[in-house]
């Protein structure tokens, strides 16, 4: 939504600090990913198994994160929810990368009227509220998990397209492109084999920072009851389900919220560290 390109414009990097950022961020992300993937198998509980003798239990030895209003284990629900949240982050980002890179590269390389047309379209899409587009997409295709991924990806590519276009604009005047033209390479070949590989660094950095944005959007939709449907869970639905009983059973909100926050910290640090390491600065992007 809004925060996406915020971290990209940093121009100054602390000497050497990007190593610790990458290391710390990557460790956080790895640990949580492992927990989320392996955890549900190791836990003795199932995420949708209701136990009416254990309703709203506080955290303890039996249930480390307590139980919810249907007696389900909050820990295992958080882990399974994390799977969904991370999956959404990865797949939607991938969708946005594919669309954004193609769109931006074509606009940048074509230039002229096509470029103007494509980029004005992006301007118009920017002015549409994203939640509106998502609601319409959902009512169109039903509320499928895969559609959620695609929809989030389909609305997150705008900034990526702008970034790639900007890079391609400056790259296409470089001698190696001229050389390729002189050798008789087709426009498609130049775009995909010469220009796109050169923007991949920026794309990598930007996609790392898109993952947390998309995850936030997913949780935000799920929080509003538009995303993942029960009995499936994501961090957003877990928090949203816990909010009404916040005063009495705070753990139902705090644990999924904490997990999500830690994951986002890891991803943000990783992205920032990569940005600093690859020295992707604003000049290169805008």
């Amino acid at each position, binding site marked *: 939504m*809004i925060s996406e390109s915020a971290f990209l414009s940093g121009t100054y990097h602390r000497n050497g600090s990007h190593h610790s950022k990458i290391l710390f961020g990557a460790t956080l992300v790895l640990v949580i990913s492992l927990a989320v993937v392996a955890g549900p198998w190791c836990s003795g509980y199932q995420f949708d198994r209701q136990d009416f003798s254990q309703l709203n239990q506080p955290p303890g030895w039996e249930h480390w994160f307590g139980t919810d209003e249907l007696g389900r284990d909050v820990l295992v629900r958080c882990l399974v929810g994390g799977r969904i949240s991370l999956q959404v982050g990865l797949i939607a980002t991938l969708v946005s990368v594919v669309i954004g890179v193609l769109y931006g590269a074509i606009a940048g390389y074509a230039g002229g009227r096509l470029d103007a047309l494509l980029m004005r379209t992006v301007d118009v899409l920017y002015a549409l509220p994203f939640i*509106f587009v998502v609601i319409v997409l959902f009512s169109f295709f039903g509320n499928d998990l895969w559609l959620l991924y695609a929809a989030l990806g389909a609305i997150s590519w705008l900034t990526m397209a702008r970034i790639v276009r900007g890079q391609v604009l400056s790259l296409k005047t470089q001698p190696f492109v001229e050389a390729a033209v002189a050798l008789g390479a087709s426009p498609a070949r130049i775009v995909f084999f010469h220009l796109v590989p050169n923007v991949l660094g920026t794309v990598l950095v930007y996609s790392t920072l898109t993952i*947390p944005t998309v995850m936030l959007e997913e*949780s935000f939709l799920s929080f509003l009851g538009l995303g993942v449907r029960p009995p499936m869970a994501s961090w*957003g639905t877990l*928090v949203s389900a816990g*909010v009404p009983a*916040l005063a009495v059973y705070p753990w139902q909100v705090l644990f999924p*919220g904490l997990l999500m926050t830690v994951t986002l910290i890891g991803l943000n640090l990783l992205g920032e560290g990569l940005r600093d390491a690859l020295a992707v600065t604003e000049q290169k992007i805008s």
Partner: protein
Amino acid sequence: MLRFILLRLLTILPITLLVVTASFFLMRSAPGSPFVNSRTFSPEVVESLNRQYGLDKPIFFVTLLEPQTLEQPTSWLTRLTFRWNGVNNQYWNYVSSIARGDLGPSTRYEGRRVGDIIFEHFPYSAILGAISFALALTVGLALGVGAAVRQNSGLDRLVFLLTTVAVSVPAFVLGPVLVLLFSLTWYWLPPARWGGVRHLILPVLTLSLAYTAIIARLTRDGMAAALQADYIRTARAKGLREAVIVLRHALRNAVLPVISFSGPVLAFLLGGTVVVERLFVIPGLGSFFIEAATARDYTVVMGIVIVTAVLILVANLVTDVVTAWVDPRIRHEISR
């Protein structure tokens, strides 16, 4: 400069029209309609309601007819046939009513005009958004400048740590946690609803925290880069006071990324944020939007979409103007 502003203002109109068109067809193509979803109405009533609101008219000037099957194989293009519906169609009626300044009647809230609904509920969103934005901007700038001036100091590290966490806490987690602490444990502040200043504190904090962090980060990075520039060394050599060097010479360059970030954020915050409004039960535009969209209240949805779009477009223009005002190089570029 004036010419630039006027030209840009002129482009807002066609872009808004495009946004209206795009969202009109997106909305109409979604399954369901305002009255069908409610089971309480009999088909005859639905029909008469549709007639009353003009929803029985054709959607657009032309309707695409079913492709006819022909004996000879022809290209699909020649098989497309259209029916001309004339100007009495929903799209044209809607666009011309907007042009007259009328956003139409709401189908969900009987007897209410969309213009009135927006007029009544936009101020809540705008007040909340404006205060949050002002807070984020001032605190963010102060923290950023402080951290950049004392680089690698305790303050710098603290700002880095705080901003990293603040950016990563989703609003719908932060809001409940704040309510849990300040309202339900310590009983200091009201947990929800619109009231006096005290009611605003928690929603404003929830809304502004992430933006404060991003602005602080942008300012810090911009300042740190600016402070290393040659013109700062010149300013120091001239013997200027440190405060003048930092606040007049360096900050001017450092705030450029902050400005380009802040413009769209301001538009977004003014237009109403769904999560915070819902969490704190604030009757702003954001809380209306989801309800209207699920109820297929076409006119209300479209009205809010238009408000949002105009806000974004105006914010972009204001951003460019402020950038030009701060940076003479850009001003020069624009004036040419």
